[in-house]
């Protein structure tokens, strides 16, 4: 037999030891994490809170002169379809891509950022990175691609 009861016991023992030690270390730590409760929103989130807009606002303002849409998702997701007129600035490639886009972004009066949907943090994180580079007037389209396509709006490839 490939693996027997003995191995299941050993695996259970390793899991139990990890569980016990993990909980014990947390219990005695100076700043224990709350169990079975969400972390405070400040943990790991962008330090600045940005204004949020909905799809209607994007539709009215997204193409207006002086405004620009930024897609925070990975480049492959952008290529597969994005909001018309949006530029790709994947959060993961921020350091590499920002310098070439910077002059254009700095001319813009209003920046909209979005990612795949309400559950992703990339748009907010991207807004934080842009803020850190001195850009102002950044708004987050919280609904993202999921909301945009869900409402039947056009997608550009």
């Amino acid at each position, binding site marked *: 037999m*490939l*693996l027997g009861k003995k*191995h299941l016991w*050993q*695996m259970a023992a*390793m*899991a139990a*030891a*990890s*569980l016990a*030690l*993990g*909980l014990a*270390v*947390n219990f005695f*730590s100076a*700043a224990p*994490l*709350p*169990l*079975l*409760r*969400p*972390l405070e929103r400040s*943990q*790991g*989130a962008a330090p600045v809170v940005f204004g949020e807009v909905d799809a209607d606002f994007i539709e009215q303002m997204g193409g207006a002169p002086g405004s620009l849409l930024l897609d925070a*998702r*990975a480049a*492959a*997701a*952008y290529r*597969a379809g994005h909001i018309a007129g949006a530029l790709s600035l*994947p*959060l*993961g490639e921020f350091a590499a891509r920002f310098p070439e886009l910077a002059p254009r972004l700095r001319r813009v009066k209003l920046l909209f950022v979005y*990612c*795949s*949907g309400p*559950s*992703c*943090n*990339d748009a907010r994180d991207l807004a934080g990175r842009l803020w850190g580079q001195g850009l102002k007037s950044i708004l987050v389209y919280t609904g993202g*691609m999921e909301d945009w396509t869900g409402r039947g709006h056009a997608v550009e490839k």
Partner: protein
Amino acid sequence: MPSKNKLRRILSSAWLQTLCRLALGAIFIYASLDKIAHPREFAAIIANYAILPDFLVTLPALVLPWLELFAGLCLVSGVWARSAALWLSLLLLLFILALGINALRGISMSCGCFSTSAADTESAYVLILRDLLILIPGLIIVFFGREREDTNQVL
């Protein structure tokens, strides 16, 4: 088939098994340390994967790094090696699944693989490929490793 037997002999040979044990064990011991030291940051990274509900992110953040450490120590020391290799292989499959889901959703997040730094951001496909590579020694140990007890019986 003689060639099949030969492959089996190579895969279950003592030196390859030892090499796989040490490599896989060392990788996971190293990967566990920064996460054990920074559970709060690791929990935030797990939350960013946006797979688990928010109230469930702290438990894996506290327990997973220790499991990686224990299993890694088991592998390096040779005690319970196959059980440890199976655990780590299962974890790797889980990581591949989580990365794959977010690659398809187009979310790029920091990986939380070897450190809790936010700069630990790479293409999910590269990370999946890396996990698949690390999975190879794990599976070699699970499927071709010999137990210490078995060898005792032979002797």
